[in-house]
């Protein structure tokens, strides 16, 4: 069977994302890639932890961070992970419209998160906390910015994926792609949980 053909309920496999060798390879390769990404973020966290008190004359994290705002951003992102789970459930039930709907909600929540982050950064810059103001500034914007960059990439990814497959239904070629995006999105979410803890909560208690 051609991997690009629309699956019907009769020939729908239990795991459409892993039904072909290409799918299996992508599935495993992407998990491994996330292993590498873990090292990437671990290194950034290490750098941040080494430099987080080096704010010189500028404001410290304790003075800067506003927990209600960060909490709202966290809620948006965690909810977007939940909606991507619903999208993957729809994928496994061959419900393409429901899959599209849930991923669009995911996308909008991701955009909301990104908007809050941009607002937050602009606010900090006005407080005198910039990328070049101190080692703390460099480390903060690098760590949180790398995460924000990942969110932005995810938004571009799911947008392209949805647009390209809008009228196609679920196929053995696109099922792994949807699934991989969801994996990626969960990973980005987990990293944010660590950022929330290590940067914001630990920053608040000093």
């Amino acid at each position, binding site marked *: 069977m051609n991997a690009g053909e629309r699956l019907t309920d009769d020939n729908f496999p239990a795991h459409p994302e892993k039904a072909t060798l290409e799918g299996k390879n992508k599935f495993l390769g992407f998990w491994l890639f996330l292993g*590498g990404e873990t*090292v990437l973020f671990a*290194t950034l966290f290490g*750098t941040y932890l080494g430099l987080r008190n080096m704010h*010189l004359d500028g404001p410290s994290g304790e003075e800067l961070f506003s927990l209600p705002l960060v909490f709202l951003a966290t809620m948006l992102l965690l909810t977007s992970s939940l909606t991507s789970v619903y999208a993957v459930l729809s994928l496994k039930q061959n419900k393409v419209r429901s899959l599209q709907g849930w991923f669009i909600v995911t996308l909008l929540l991701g955009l909301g998160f990104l908007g809050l982050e941009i607002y937050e950064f602009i606010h900090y810059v006005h407080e005198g906390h910039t990328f*070049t103001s101190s080692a703390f500034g*460099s480390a903060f914007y690098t760590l949180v910015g790398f995460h924000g960059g990942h969110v932005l990439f995810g938004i571009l990814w799911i947008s*392209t994926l949805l647009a390209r497959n809008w009228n196609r239904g679920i196929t053995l070629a696109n099922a792994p792609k949807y699934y991989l995006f969801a994996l990626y999105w969960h990973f980005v979410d987990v990293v944010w949980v660590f950022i929330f803890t290590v940067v914001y909560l630990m920053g608040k208690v000093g």
Partner: protein
Amino acid sequence: MATHESHKKRSGLMDWLTTVDHKKIGILYLLAGGFFFLIGGLEAILMRIQLMEPDSKIFTGELYNQLLTMHGTTMIFLAAMPIIFGFMNAILPLQIGARDVAFPFVNAVGFWLFFFGGLLLNLSWFLGGAPEAGWTAYAPLSTVAEDTGVDFYVLGLQIAGAGTLAGGINFLVTVINMRAPGMTFMRMPLFTWASFVTSGLILFAFPALTVGIFLLMFERVFEANFFNADMGGNVLIWEHIFWIFGHPEVYILILPAFGIISEIVSTFSSKRLFGYSAMVFATVLIGFLGFMVWVHHMFTVGLGPVANSIFAVATMAIAIPTGVKIFNWIFTMWGGQIRFTTAMLFAVGFIPTFVMGGVTGVMLSVPAADYQYHDSYFVVAHFHYVIVGGLILGLFAGLYYWYPRMFNRVLNETLGKWNFWLFFIGFHLTFFPQHWLGLMGMPRRVYTYMSGQDLDGANFVSTIGAILMGAGTIVLLINIVISASSKYATTKDPWDGRTLEWAMPVPTPEYNFAQTPLVRGLDALYVEKTAGNGEMTPAEPVGEIHMPNGSILPFIMSLGLFISGFGFIYANWIVAGAGLGVVLITMFLRSVIDDHGYHIHKEEVEADIKGGRA
């Protein structure tokens, strides 16, 4: 049955620019890596000419620093690793009975990223001077350097490193998912095992380098303050990040050489590898311990006796699995019918040379003693004994061994032996005296020394040795050129091989195996030979074979990053943005153009089998 007729046969240059065939990508890696090896070797000989006599004034100061930085960087990132990747690409899928690697397109992307990264780095010679902060680019040396040399280092390595990471993931998935029926993990040839563990190390080591280089780039291009002590930064962060990557990197280099030596020693002793399962265990253990020892590069930094002791013990522990390997190679030869081909000579020469490098490694792992050796020529002697005496001898061995499989020719054995003896003797002449130079106090990374300090004689001998190594390499080049004549055409199994890569006709068909082979034991081909079959039993009937289409996108994508690299180096945001735009557009095209590859029909495969071409 749906087939795709979108397949275009390309020829000439276009074929090489668009290929996704792992065998051709292997050749590309080997050629590009070999080219950079010559450049790195030339840089080394120029340094040795400067050091031949005391108070010499040929390549001094900044130029010498550029030579030493580029020699290290080129040899590690642009010569050794790509040549390893060349062998992995050309041989690993064949050894496990696979038709291809898991991600052929990504494989091509990986090659072109390495190529353009290396090109960018070397163009620095012509565009304002090469980097001069050492291959380790220690802050603040690298952050305060005012010309653009370090920027070329940063962007060139970032681009090449991304390619390496992609390659590592590709090989991991290939080994896990694409082994032929019966090829269990404990039947995999040692080279495949070593490549597998190496790929795992790449996966966990290279992202740390990625971050380190980003930090350095942000510091230089966007005025960040990670390493600037005036603004609260800390230079030790660079050292930690660099060596968390850098130490596993030396095992990324040496493990594939161990794999190559294992294959060759076994083949040319006509014996199964002694202690196969111990060899596998030792490989995995070395890979694991490689991550636990990075602080031994920082014993003199002042982290304190507790940290130093922990990392000293972890470092010494690596000698145990390495010793297991050395003894197993010797026991493999013991009682075997040894054939001293050139490949075997290199493999046998490797063993005592690498042991010497290992012994000085254990000496260096004692922190108290390290305060004496630190930053002296003793360290230079040590790491050249393991990297050149280990890895490069292993790569020469692999080249002579696998040349018939990759190029359908054998290399001339007489010239091969000249190659070996010139290089081997030259190597020991170069680096053995450097142990004494170091113990007598000659520091590394300096461009001259004074006469009357008993350093003259050993330095002179060392330079003579370097020239001999250069001569050995020239013999190899001559050998490669003359091997192009039809006199050196080969049969499919010139060495009486034991593993699967020798089971296919010459030249290797583009789909590798017409029928996926059934593997019935360790040394799969040897098992069939002793069973009287002579060739592999197929695990499937003849059928259609699915192949990936070639694509120019990997080339264009890497070209885009290359262009954006210049933008970042010269702080020209339009060029940087345009280059990244090209990358995004190629990624977009890759996502929206459906490419399901093409099929080779059953009749064609049957015709190939009949005609002896498969």
